[in-house]
């Protein structure tokens, strides 16, 4: 609950072995948030090639997709986005006071589901034409 809020232990990373599920959820949500906001700026920068005409846009996107490393980065992006979404739903539930007793379990469920969705997405991301 909010009255037992104590960030000091979360930010003392030297004590990571003692972190509870809620602390890990807080750290992972923050990390995935930083990645996603960084990606948002990069994404708009890449899509800005549309201002340079049809050919530039198509060749830039297809050129990036032709690189295997980009496909792996996309799998990573999906993992980050899925965790942020699932843990975000968990946070909304916690804020609404729903399932407070199970917030540790819902964090573990978010992790397992993120892993499963990420693994299941690999064939799709690695499929399609490569260079």
């Amino acid at each position, binding site marked *: *609950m909010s009255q037992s809020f104590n960030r000091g232990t979360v930010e003392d990373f030297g004590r990571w072995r003692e972190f*509870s599920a809620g602390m890990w959820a807080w750290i992972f949500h923050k990390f995935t*948030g*930083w990645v996603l906001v960084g990606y948002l700026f990069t994404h708009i920068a890449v899509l800005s090639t*549309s201002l340079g005409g049809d*050919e530039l846009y198509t060749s830039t996107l297809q050129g990036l*997709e032709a690189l295997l490393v980009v496909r792996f980065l996309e799998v990573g992006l999906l993992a980050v986005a899925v965790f942020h979404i699932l843990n975000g739903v968990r946070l909304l539930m916690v804020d609404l006071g729903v399932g407070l*007793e199970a917030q540790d379990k819902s964090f573990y469920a978010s992790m397992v589901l993120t892993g499963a969705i990420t693994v299941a997405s690999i064939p799709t991301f690695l499929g*399609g034409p*490569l260079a």
Partner: protein
Amino acid sequence: MAQHYSSFERGGRRWLLQRLTAVFLIGVLAFHFLLLHFANHAANITFAGTQARMSQVGYFATMWLFLVTATFHGVNGVYNALVNQGIEGTQKNAVKWVLVVAGLLLIAQGTRVALAMNGFL
């Protein structure tokens, strides 16, 4: 029971807007990923295909709202994370205005991109 941690002051306006944009983004981000990676493979994206999608008013409006809400959610999240780390005074004010300007520039550039994609520019 595990403790509840948040980077937000509960009940504030920034907290509420972060939650409201989150609800919208959960659906739209999932839709965006499914449409452009699973229904259509990203390797097959062409300007013509993008233009066909962006020419639909509903899709264009959804994508533009996606841009605005994602920018707000991201920039507001960064600001709150930094306030949560303890920045104060001039530092806090400088961070605030850098993020406001960066967010507005991103929305302006994203809007130009959206208009180029639907053939308006």
